[in-house]
């Protein structure tokens, strides 16, 4: 199965390093490979580092950080070929990189699957950056290319400021969905869409403590993966969805991030089931079930 790849974008100071540290701390058994441009500015919490050698940093819990310099593709191939395999690869984009370009490259590396583009925005800086003499169009392009937007440092400003910035972001990045942070925590499931696979751990409600709600739907019939993906992606209350469905021609892995979806037809069998995640209060599990029923194929 292809390894999913997430790109983390946003200008300097948006909180990418903090997010990386957070993810490494809450990986909880998932093997994450994190690619960064260079280690210099990446302040990985010292207690997480097990060993460091020539561009690769081993992190406790089976994760690694890898500096790619000018050979991102080579580093991606190294991570793809590692054993035991990584569950997820994350790329920290440089402060001025356009995440969509990185995703295009990822999509061309055999064995990798572009998963999501997450762009971080510092609530205090983002509007100023978007007016920056030299950077304005770069910053706006980064936001526009996001599947998921993560507004950071929101605890430093009034709630009304956060709402103003969110309103503005909704106009410059109309298709992106917001990832909320509560008490400094973000559900890893929403960040990287890593659902516990049946062979790994039993499926359960993974979001019981977070600001997310989720539901696991197990379809009874064959599913049209395109119709299902489209329905999930068009539902603004669904942040992510991922899982296996039976189609007329075999098992399909379907993944939805924000308003984008994709599916892969697989050769092997997997326990069926799709996890849908949405923000508590907005997410209505019965809607998700309705989408599933509409995607059922009665002709097969």
């Amino acid at each position, binding site marked *: 199965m292809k390894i999913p790849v997430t790109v983390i974008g946003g200008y300097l100071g948006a909180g990418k390093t903090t997010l990386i540290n957070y993810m490494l701390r809450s990986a909880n058994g998932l093997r994450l490979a994190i690619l960064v441009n260079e280690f210099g500015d990446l302040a990985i919490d010292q207690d997480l580092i097990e060993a460091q050698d020539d561009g690769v940093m081993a992190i406790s819990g089976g994760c690694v950080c890898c500096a790619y310099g000018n050979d991102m593709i080579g580093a991606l191939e190294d991570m793809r070929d590692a054993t035991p395999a990584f569950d997820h690869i994350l790329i920290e984009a440089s402060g*001025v990189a356009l995440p969509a370009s*990185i995703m295009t490259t990822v999509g061309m590396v055999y064995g990798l699957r572009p998963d999501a583009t997450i762009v971080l925005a510092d609530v205090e800086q983002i509007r100023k950056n978007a007016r920056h003499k030299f950077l304005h169009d770069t910053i706006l392009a980064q936001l526009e290319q996001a599947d998921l937007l993560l507004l950071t440092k929101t605890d430093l400003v009034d709630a009304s400021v956060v709402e103003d910035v969110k309103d503005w972001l909704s106009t410059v990045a109309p298709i992106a969905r917001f990832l909320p942070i509560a008490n400094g925590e973000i559900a890893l499931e929403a960040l990287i869409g890593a659902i516990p696979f049946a062979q790994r751990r039993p499926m359960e409600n993974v979001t019981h403590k977070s600001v997310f709600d989720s539901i696991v739907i197990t379809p009874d019939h064959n599913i049209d993966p395109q119709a299902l993906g489209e329905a999930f992606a068009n539902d603004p209350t669904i942040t992510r969805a991922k899982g296996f469905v039976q189609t007329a021609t075999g098992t399909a892995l379907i993944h939805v991030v924000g308003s984008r979806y994709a599916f892969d037809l697989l050769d092997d069998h997997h326990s069926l089931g799709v996890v849908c995640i949405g923000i508590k209060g907005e997410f209505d599990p019965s809607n998700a079930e309705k989408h599933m029923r509409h995607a059922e194929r009665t002709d097969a």
Partner: protein
Amino acid sequence: MSGTTIYSARKIITMNPNRPMVTHVAVKDGRILAAGSLDELATWGAFTLDERFADKVIMPGLIEGHAHSMEGALWSFTYVGWFDRMDPDGKIWSGVKTVDDVVDRMSQIEKTMNDPNEPLLGWGLDPIYMDNVRVTRHDLDRVSATRPIGILHASGHILNVNTKGLELAGLLKPGQNHPGIPLGDDGLPNGELKSPEITMPAGKHVGMDRAFLAADAEGLRNYGRLCVRAGVTTSSDLGQQLNDDLVGVFETVTGQADYPVCLVAFCINLGKSPAELVDYTASMKDRSTQRLELGKIKVIADGSIQGFSARLQWPGYYNGAPNGLWYIAPDQMADIYQRALAAGVQVHTHTNGDEATQLAIETLEGALRKHPDFDHRFTLQHCQLATEAQFRKMGRLGMCVNLFANHHFYWGDEHFALTVGPERAERMNACRTALDQGVPMTIHSDAPVTPLGPLFTAAAAASRRTASGRVQGEHQRISVKEALYAVTMGAAITMKMDDQIGSIEIGKRADFAVLYDDPTEADPDTLKEVRVWGTVQGGRIFEAATI
């Protein structure tokens, strides 16, 4: 201590204003003991008179301020460019003029390959001279349907691959939706791939792998031979992702007794944080030798104009393309500049578009307030679109410039018609303005983007003729004399090596370009025809014909 050798010549052009022309030069221990008349030189004591250059013209060894040693490595692949080009062995590869010629040349090489799966890579293709004909995967399938084939364009921005190459890159399927992957009538990619996010991953399957990108000993040796053929005794390698291993390769190759050129290896700002970059580069300074200069930084600010990735000021690209890309965050540039000024490390910054130039100027001005330095000579490389106001500011801030005169010849017509339009095309690579505004200036080839050859580059700056033969930007022409100064002293000044090289005068390194013809008698249009016999580097003699 070796003895003194006095060389006679038909004429010795010194670039020393005190005595611009002499007849003899005395060399001792690889350095210039004296330059003047034989009677004067004889007063220094015993000498051997060497008259092998008696019918030649000697000038200071030419200095290439912006090239890449990759020019030496590229000759492991097949040249399919429009213009005739000389390889390190001195063989002239004739320019290919039609797609059939391209296919023929690739096919000839293909027939000699044993491993049926080994990729075949060509380089230097430039369809703008072939009425912008599209080369498709079907054309390259005529070379081979089973072996991955790729051809990298001269600009470096476009890659053509055959069907097998598309298949290996996972692109041979309908539904591709990316501006960098144009489709044929059948809905499948036509094999032309554009923009780095596409060409880099696809290139891996047609031979542009890690080894292709990295500097190796063989490539450095070949590059040295190309330098001799071009009369070059010092060349920048701008830049390399230097680490101890790679510096070791440079030390070993340049340390060989017969290595014919001094390489100035700049450390590029990729893969290192500003602090690491400046600290590491500063620590390299002491490892410099007679043939390896270390301790300088290259920063890349934006992309290229013909790739539409350079950052332009308003009103942007002539054809309406969106503005280009930043390759460094302004805060990181500021961090590097400040640390480098504090550490006394020189920084050369690639800025193609005038907006990138503006960022570099403003960033340096801010950094200088914190770390004043009265002789930093921070240099802008390419700086192709700079305005007069920008040159004025650069002059007052103590900056230098290295303008891309060759670009004007090779792509000037394209810039006029498509990228920046007539008005800005005429001010591109504004040598006259740079000199008038007191900005120390040199000019470059950016080999392998265009061929290494400072005399050609000097001619391009003096004539400002484009490939179609038009003079584009009459006002920006410089004299032959100024152009020759630019490729000797000018380059030495921008690399802070003017105390050692750039002119033929007492105390400097014995670096000469030995020529059959007198460049000072050439006019702007004939300067490029001046023939090179070879070089003298550090007192050692290298003949192009036998290198």
